[in-house]
């Protein structure tokens, strides 16, 4: 197009990014915790917090891709267990650790690919497929190990979980690198555009020539890869492969992190930035409650309420920038209060 150069692109007006609201909430929550304890506001605690949140951050990263096409990956926590056991088993069988890591990451991507393939070939809901591979992965971890832990003896491997680069723990660095790559992938590449298109309107995307099979498989492979990276990191932190690692809150927290950050469960909407803010919010709250000596009985309640309030404010900001939140309630009551709900 020769005329292309002549037409000026409309200047895009600068606008508040979607994630501003939840970032604000994160800052408020963090500030509150800091105000309550001097131990919270040390640099070293900041790093501990990020270190402890790194694996959930990685899972949230993978989950973001899957959610963006309107899918869900329930197998992600179980994959941590399976892959953590796998990497330690490989090392126990004499594979040198860098190779063992590479093989494990490949295995994670393969697990994800299998999810994607089943979803795409048989058109079975992702919930069922990944529910099933969740079962398979967690069983595999137990079967391989006989439920025993597998110690890691190659001490070099520890660097992945315990090392630091310029004072920043390696897992945090790894997460940061992959988050940036993921952000670029989604915003700058054809594949990224196709992922959003698939989630936005699957049928329209197909008619526009988007390869749904490829996008579906890729996002699940990415999620599998992220989970295996999480498994490697968890194992390197403990220096022991343990078949129940990752079977705790990881799955829920990873989905919640993405949703908190504005990723829609129905696909097509959301960014990596948001999911990472969500993951940090969860990390801050989990860390903060232990630093502040909140009783473990109260912790789920506190984390639940903080997340809820943060998302309420964020949703609010997105919908009615400006109006105070009391107005929403009043509007609701106006709509429903005077009349009977009928």
């Amino acid at each position, binding site marked *: 197009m020769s*005329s*292309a150069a002549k037409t000026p692109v409309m200047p895009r007006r600068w606008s508040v990014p979607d994630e501003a609201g939840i970032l604000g909430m994160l800052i408020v929550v963090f500030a509150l915790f800091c105000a309550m304890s001097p131990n919270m506001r040390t640099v070293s605690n900041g790093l501990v917090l990020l270190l402890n949140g790194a694996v959930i951050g990685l899972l949230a990263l993978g989950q973001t891709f899957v959610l963006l096409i309107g899918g869900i990956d329930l197998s992600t926590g179980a994959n941590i267990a399976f892959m953590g056991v796998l990497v330690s088993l490989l090392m126990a069988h004499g594979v040198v650790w860098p190779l063992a890591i590479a093989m494990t990451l490949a295995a994670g991507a393969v697990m994800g690919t299998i999810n994607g393939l089943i979803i795409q070939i048989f058109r079975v809901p992702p919930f069922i497929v990944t529910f099933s591979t969740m079962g398979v992965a967690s069983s595999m971890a137990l079967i391989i190990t006989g439920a025993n832990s597998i110690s890691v003896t190659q001490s070099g491997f520890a660097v992945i979980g315990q090392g630091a680069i310029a004072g920043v723990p390696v897992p945090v660095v790894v997460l940061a690198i992959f988050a940036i790559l993921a952000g670029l992938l989604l915003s700058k*590449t054809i*594949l990224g555009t196709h992922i959003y298109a698939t989630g936005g*309107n699957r049928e329209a995307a*197909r*008619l526009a*020539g988007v390869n749904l099979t490829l996008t579906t498989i890729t996002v699940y492979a990415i999620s599998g890869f992220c989970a295996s990276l999480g498994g490697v990191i968890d194992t390197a932190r403990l220096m022991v492969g343990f078949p129940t690692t990752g079977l705790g809150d990881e799955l829920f927290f990873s989905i919640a992190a993405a949703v908190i950050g504005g990723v829609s469960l129905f696909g097509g909407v959301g960014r990596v930035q948001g999911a990472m803010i969500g993951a940090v919010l969860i990390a801050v709250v989990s860390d903060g409650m232990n630093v502040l000596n909140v009783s473990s009985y109260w912790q789920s309640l506190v984390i639940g309420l903080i997340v809820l309030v943060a998302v309420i404010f964020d949703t609010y900001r997105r919908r009615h920038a400006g109006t105070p939140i009391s107005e929403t309630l009043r509007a609701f009551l106006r709509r429903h209060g005077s009349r009977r709900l009928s």
Partner: protein
Amino acid sequence: MGADLLVAEGIVKRYGNATVLHGVTVTFRAGEVHGLIGHNGAGKSTLLKIIAGAVVPDGGTVRLEGQPVSFSSPSAAASAGVASVFQELSLLENLTVTQNLFLARELGTAGVLDKKAMQAQASDLLRTYGLPLTGQEKVASLPVAQRQMIEIISALARNARVILLDEPTTALERRQIDQLVHTLRRIARERQVAIVIVDHKLDEIFAVCDHVTALTDGRVVLNGPIASLTHADVVESIVGKDEAAASHGNRPSSPRLAADVKALPALTVEGIGAPRGLKSVSFDLAPGEILGLYGLAGSGRSRLLRTLYGLEPFEWGRMTLRGQVYHPASPRNAMKSGLTYLSEERKANGFIPEFDAVRNCMLPVLGRHAWLGMIRKHEAEQEALVVLRSLRIRGNIRAPLGRLSGGNQQKALLAKAVLQKPSILLLDEPTKGIDVGTKSEIHAFIRRMAKESGVAVLVVSTEEEELLTVCDDIIIMNGGHCSGERHEVVALDSGTLRRLALAPPRPDTRFGNAMETVK
């Protein structure tokens, strides 16, 4: 003639910084059909949505029989006697026809449905409007035209005093439109209700309306009884003075292709069909020609285009593309072979609602503007912008396309199709919802593409006039059959075309009866 039933006064609406209605005042009278016209993005749909309580205005008042009203929702409006059909189909596809017809006004006692009564009433209604349905069909399984009729029926069946219809006829065929026009006029007179209809088709406006209001950029520019207006007045109010004379009504005057070019067909279709689908379809399509495909609703025109684009399988017959066997397994496949398809179901599969117009247009051609999968965004956007501008999209092309007006969305879809630089272009209702000014430009645009770039175009349209304007030849589809016999447009008028479509299908003798051979 009748009393002022509903008055909208000084309605103002803003979206962000853009004001889409600048204090619009209109009056709808009992017993009258009121036409609301204007260019795409003029604010017609927004006005209706405000009156119906689906959108909250930033200023102005609505009065129903002199009383100021402010409906909190369309259902509140409906219970006050204001029923509406919006531009985007809003039936629930997972429910049955009957369930849709009675949604939120179900018959029953103490919350328990009276299914028999609803079913009986629904059958009556469907029969009255000539729809061959039982009422128990899931809406998802119905073709677009029937869905549109069901929405209209559902609004008319409510005992409303004001009925708002936003482009009710876009998917309907002539017969249905004629019947609808007749029904609307009758209902208006007999029940003394006010009917408001948004429509881009002038003949319909003149056939049905008593009174016309035209909007331009959110302002009333014309308001008067139809008797006092001429076609020219109306066109001028939509497209502006300068262009009115030049643009309307002329057939684009590019030459037909010489007959020898047709000797090398771009696409040859020989007796294709499938069980529960097309029966037997044959035709040739040559580079640089524009072939119209006409038929009654349900005759299989859309199915044919979908089959050509790899969206539906065919099990017998064969297709040849530039001399090679062509059997697309998927749309991607078809695209790679140089075909492009514009769907009639804009909202269902036409575009990605969260993407803006530019991004939607870029989607199929990203590969052209990328290196190792990395998009050269600026370059891609420039290309898309050029085409989008030439189609005169109004509204913010950087806003999610789902928020643009219907006609402007349609323009974006056309731009997307054009950008793909296809060698074969399949258009299903290409100007659905597009205003008269832009329509003739689009016709000219299509002809230019064919004549200058040698694109072979296959056009499906329920508007005979459109086919007669834009096509070289027309082929007829009937009950899943198409013999491929061509009718030159110069020898046709709408009446002849309709008669041809009604004639019983002639078996396709060239390839034998494909269905029989398969059995």
